[in-house]
């Protein structure tokens, strides 16, 4: 009798557990990096120059991991081009990190879709791992203090307006704390669909 009751309880718990679990999408995206100091990105670029992330302290940097083969990257690219134009002489910049691609393919990608921001091409594997990249495209926002404050997975939310809105919110948060860049605040939801622009 005890055995019957015990097994009934266990099975009821199992059924309840299975009934209340969501069927989620594959590949859990992680946001471990939010709040951490952005790992260094340094090396030669596609255009032939060199780039060092730590030298960009004081600016907002949008780090965009991409590959010419991934569809999401093609969708968001025009938006990044616009963002780049808008802030050409400002304190908001983009650096691209090519991942899992060949230099030629990346070059053609930029030729086709435009954009002239620095794109890292060498030894990008360790950079991707340092940033906890799971799938492409992924875009991160590094604050002037050097910390990562936002992460977008996929092209959703990666629009010129969207990125600007997020940066603006950090710079002028409701509540006027000065070190907005150091707070992790709204970073937990990977996809920002705020274009309550201005």
């Amino acid at each position, binding site marked *: 009798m005890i055995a019957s009751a015990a097994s009934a309880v266990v099975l009821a718990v199992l059924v309840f557990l299975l009934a209340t679990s969501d069927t989620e999408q*594959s*590949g*859990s995206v*992680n946001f*471990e*990096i939010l709040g951490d100091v952005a790992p260094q990105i340094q090396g030669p670029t596609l255009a032939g120059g060199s780039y060092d992330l730590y030298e960009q302290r004081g600016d907002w940097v949008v780090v965009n991991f991409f*590959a010419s083969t991934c569809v999401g990257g093609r969708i968001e690219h025009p938006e990044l081009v616009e963002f780049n134009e808008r802030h050409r002489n400002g304190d908001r910049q983009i650096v691209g990190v090519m*991942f*899992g691609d060949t230099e030629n393919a990346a070059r053609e990608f930029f030729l086709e879709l435009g954009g002239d921001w620095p794109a890292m091409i060498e030894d990008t*594997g*360790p950079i*991707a*791992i*340092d*940033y*906890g*990249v*799971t*799938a*492409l495209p992924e875009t991160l926002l590094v604050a002037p203090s050097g910390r990562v404050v936002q992460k977008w997975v996929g092209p959703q939310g990666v629009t010129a307006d969207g990125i600007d809105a997020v940066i603006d919110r950090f710079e002028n948060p409701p509540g006027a704390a000065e070190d907005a860049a150091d707070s992790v605040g709204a970073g937990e939801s990977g996809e920002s669909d705020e274009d309550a622009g201005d």
Partner: protein
Amino acid sequence: MTERSGFRAQWRWLSWALMAIVVTAALIVGSVADDGIRTDAERLTALASTIRCPQCTGQSVAESNVTIAREIRGDIRNRIAAGETDDEIRQVYIDRYGRSIVLTPDSGGFTGLVWVVPVVAAVVSLAAVGLAFRRWRLEAEAIPEASDADRELVAALRRSRS
């Protein structure tokens, strides 16, 4: 007959004793001669098998061939060559991707239950079986010896059935 079976019984004891020696010796040779040094490639395979592919469900980075998995394998290879320990390498990935990147569940905290509960279940069930045997033995001992009346009853049943 007794003498012969006595001889055989002795021989059997010797046989088992000899077997014990052979088995122990073989096990010692087999486990000690394995100096435990693994090549880098073996370490890579072993470590990569415990790290989940971040992009693909249900595969380790040793199994998956998507870009990130290959990159991670390459990264692990470099770290092994640079002298990092297995735990250090695992920690790097936990820091970057979260605890779920490692396919071996934590042994502490709530997650540790997954290790403990089966052991407890096994111990409990074996104990239950042991108790059942004890109960049966006590029941058997509580049965009185067969009396003559009992034997008569059995004999009578046998006669009636044949």
